[in-house]
């Protein structure tokens, strides 16, 4: 932990990221984080909405194809998030809401795996009916994503 902190405090990259007034430093990483999370959370919200009764005519199986792009979104958000975390390790890690947000994010991403495999991967090609267990997963996913976004917003005030 201490070594990690020392590294992020002395490495040229993180000093540049923290201190450079350039719009291509911290603001750009922050933008990548925002766009990644908005797309990933947003697509997951829509996917949950479909499972909870929106656009009932849409077959379930083709949604599986969206997940490859969603994983890119997850990686983009995670990597940019890690860079921001490392550039300001102490403030973030001592924030009381940070563990709440991370728990919700981990649950949300785990639910993506489950939804991809158990719901969209298991659906027959033309299936439009949603099994009850999928509705439960959809509600859990919705709660995790919305909770993570809210925790992220509130972190700046804690």
């Amino acid at each position: 932990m201490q070594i990690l902190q020392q590294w992020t405090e002395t490495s040229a990259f993180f000093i540049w990221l923290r201190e450079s007034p350039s719009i291509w430093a911290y603001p750009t990483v922050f933008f990548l984080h925002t766009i990644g999370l908005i797309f990933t959370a947003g697509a997951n919200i829509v996917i949950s909405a479909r499972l909870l009764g929106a656009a009932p005519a849409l077959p379930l199986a083709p949604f599986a194809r969206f997940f490859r792009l969603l994983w890119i979104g997850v990686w983009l958000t995670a990597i940019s998030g890690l860079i921001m975390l490392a550039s300001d390790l102490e403030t973030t890690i001592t924030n009381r809401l940070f563990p709440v947000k991370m728990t919700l994010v981990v649950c949300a991403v785990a639910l993506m795996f489950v939804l991809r495999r158990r719901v969209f991967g298991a659906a027959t090609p033309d299936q439009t009916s949603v099994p009850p267990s999928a509705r439960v997963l959809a509600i859990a996913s919705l709660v995790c994503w919305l909770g993570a976004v809210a925790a992220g917003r509130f972190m700046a005030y804690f």
Partner: protein
Amino acid sequence: MKAWWIVPVWKTLHYFAIAALAGIVGLVDLRIFGVAKGLPLRPLQRLMPWAVVAFAVAAASGYALLRINPANSLGPPVNVAFAGKVLFLLLIGLNDILYFATGLKRQVDGVGAGENASASAKIVAGVSLALWAGVVYWSRMLTFLAGAI
């Protein structure tokens, strides 16, 4: 003195609305591009009124945030990021008007499962995605570009 939680509550609502909006716009545009081709576009586009609702919520919460801290977005001096955001939102409006007025929306409604959308529909979807990404960019730059000019 306002309660500390008012701003983050509005921001959270703003983000919820943007996420829902981006989710719908993103999935519809990606399907027009040919991702998840098994989805017929007519029922997918039925989600678009919900995107309008989400936009209204985003606009209302955005307006509330603007009222709470006008200097952050409006300056003076002019905030380049806010100007860029408004410009891009207007261009999105224009793009959407074109999409409906040219009959492209109805044409896309006819794209069934496994079928390709037309090249013109793909161009409109690409412009939409790029402009929305631009809106997020300008929004993120609001605080960084305040007072840049």
